[in-house]
């Protein structure tokens, strides 16, 4: 589902204003116009700019590249990489590729769902974590694997997921305790 809300700077990796982000998006689209296979890179970069792909951004891309809206949405919903809702500060991905699946990836996922209190594709209410699943990130030798942001963790045990998450929670707590706005 797409949110009707415009992209909010608050959850963006970029702190530029919304107008500024759209200006950059237009530039980006212009660079790819008429180029076969331009859609996926544009979506990737746009997601980098806005943090996710809200409806107004998707419409701008669809109109700009002259690609039907339904087709652009079809591409976005096909790849789990793309998000149409704001993501949390950290993205937790559980590998469900064959090796990880066989070696308990499902149980790790269940433990994470329980620990975070969200389902796949959802974000915790404090906007700290988004839970996703992925195909394979090439860590099959030491399955089951998960990744948090760009860090890959191998041989993850369901009982140990809380421990893994602590270090991502702590800095925020520490910052909050000092009264510093994160």
């Amino acid at each position, binding site marked *: *589902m*797409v949110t009707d809300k415009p992209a909010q700077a608050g959850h963006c990796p970029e702190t530029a204003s919304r107008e500024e982000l759209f200006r950059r998006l237009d530039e980006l689209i212009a660079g790819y116009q008429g180029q076969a296979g331009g859609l996926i890179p544009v979506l990737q970069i746009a997601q980098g700019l806005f943090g996710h792909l809200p*409806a107004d951004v*998707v*419409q701008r891309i669809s109109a700009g590249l002259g690609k*039907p*809206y*339904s*087709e*652009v*949405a*079809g591409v*976005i*919903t*096909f790849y789990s990489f793309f998000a*149409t809702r704001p993501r949390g500060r950290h993205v937790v991905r559980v590998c469900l590729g064959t090796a990880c699946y066989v070696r308990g990836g499902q149980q790790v996922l269940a433990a994470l769902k329980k620990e975070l209190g969200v389902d796949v594709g959802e974000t915790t209410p404090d906007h700290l974590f988004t839970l996703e699943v992925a195909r394979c990130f090439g860590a099959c030798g030491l399955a089951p694997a998960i990744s948090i942001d760009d860090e890959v963790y191998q041989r993850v045990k369901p009982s140990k997921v809380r421990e893994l998450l602590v270090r991502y929670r702590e800095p925020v707590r520490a910052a909050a305790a000092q009264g510093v706005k994160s």
Partner: protein
Amino acid sequence: MPKLTIDGIQVEVAEGATVLDAARQAGVRIPTLCHLENIQAIGACRVCLVEIESHRDLAAACVMPIADGMQVHTHSPRVRAARRTVVELLLSEHDGDCPTCSRNEDCELQAVARELGIRENRYPGEKSRRREDASTPALVRNTAKCILCRRCVTVCGDVQGVTALFPQYRGFKTAIGPAFDQDLATVACVQCGQCAAVCPVGAITERDQTDEVWAALSDPHKCVVVQTAPAIRAALGECFGYPPGTLVKGKMVSALRRLGFHSVFDTNFAADLTIMEEGTELLHRLRKALADGKDAHLPMFTSCSPGWIRYAEYFHPELLPNLSTCKSPQQMMGAVLKTYYAGKLGRKPAEMFVVAVMPCTAKKAEARRPEMNASGFSDVDVVLTTRELARMIRQAGIDFKALGEGQMDSPLGESTGAADIFANTGGVMEAALRTACELITGRELPFPNLHVRPLAGLAGVKEASIPITETVPAWSFLKGATLHVAVAHGLGNARQLIERIRSGAAHYHFVEIMTCPGGCIGGGGQPRLTSDAVRQARLAAIYQEDEHRALRKSHENPAIQQLYADFLGHPLSHKAHELLHTKYTPRPRVS
């Protein structure tokens, strides 16, 4: 030409043909689901599997190219077992209940299951996700019945150039639908129903409004009248076993009387009226542009196809001033029925209930447009498609084939051959030219049998040029001019034509656009399945109807002349504007 055998039958087929083509030539039937002649061959459903000698795997006949010396078996035990498995797997995901489904007995999945003799479900599995979408006036979707054949995607994208539907998500979650699986009403869909016309199952269908009509018919306070579009008479018979192209006007009228309508009128009457209004509008624009040298928004585009109107509102708002301001014949008829005819009956507009039988789903949406209420009430209350009328006739227990030949009521049932051809691509243009050229030159349109041949037939974009060598004094400024006209059917073709006009590659005075391939005879509400052969048969039937008429030009219709004399005054009069003309609004493509 390559030779091969299909079940031992020798055939010679053209290079590049598929095994399915060869089998058809050999008179051997191979079941299909995702295949759509001339439109889609993607090998997705695997229902058409065949065995080819010396090939290890079974092949999908619809995409398998033929080769010289091929030996194909279409019904070997291995083939039958494989097809069965394929269909059983489809059924295992299919969340449908045939007895309550609108496609019951008109369903290709049901037919294939029957053909393969499937009696049990060996794979009870998880059902497709049910997502019902009744957000639009014309169509109802239910993804639980979708078999992912993608016919609708190809038709909406490649034929209509709208692409409102596309596969969303993936794997078991795949859903065919609008962007992000949202409601159809939130995206640019023109409600043409071409998706519903090709869907093999009950996953996209017309909104069934037969109950609303039954309720009105049994309401003693209502005067329920019906009008039928020109295209119905050439197609309704197919629902009762007649071959495509059988004209059943008389039986249709008899059936409507049996259903209990107060009176039965012909939308053709309003088609003649449209020609008077639209033809006059064209001449006014020509005068403004050619004699007064002002911008008159040429070319003028026809406005009788509501899918095209929505298409222009979504995708070409800059063309809205070029659209004729005429309402479609359906809406003109409704407006006249609720004002002029109600007055004759001594009834209030509120007591009139107007049903329109149309080949079209977009007309359902058109009837709901808030501005279409000349009498203060909706011009048209309910639009039924050809398929829904057939359903009502069956529900009433009427033996259609046994009916006699009924007659339309007078005077709003009287019409000319020019109105009949509104059903065909090129027909509105031909009808307009029959009247406009005669008004300008004082002579009959100079084409054999009044048919403008270059504008007829299934070519996607057609054009003609008519030199005007002499005129009556009032139109002398047109002397020596050449009238350039063009016709497109199917919105994908319309898009190409519009591109040529916009780029300056082509110049026309008048352009006819019909939303559906073939025109109204190929409408989204017509009996399924409309192939090109069916289109040709219906087109020919309509021309035959036209040629058998005593009157073949709209301005010669005495009932129309009477209506102007009694009520409207003259074409484009103030009253005509109030009742018969409308305006258009640009629409956002996503809301």
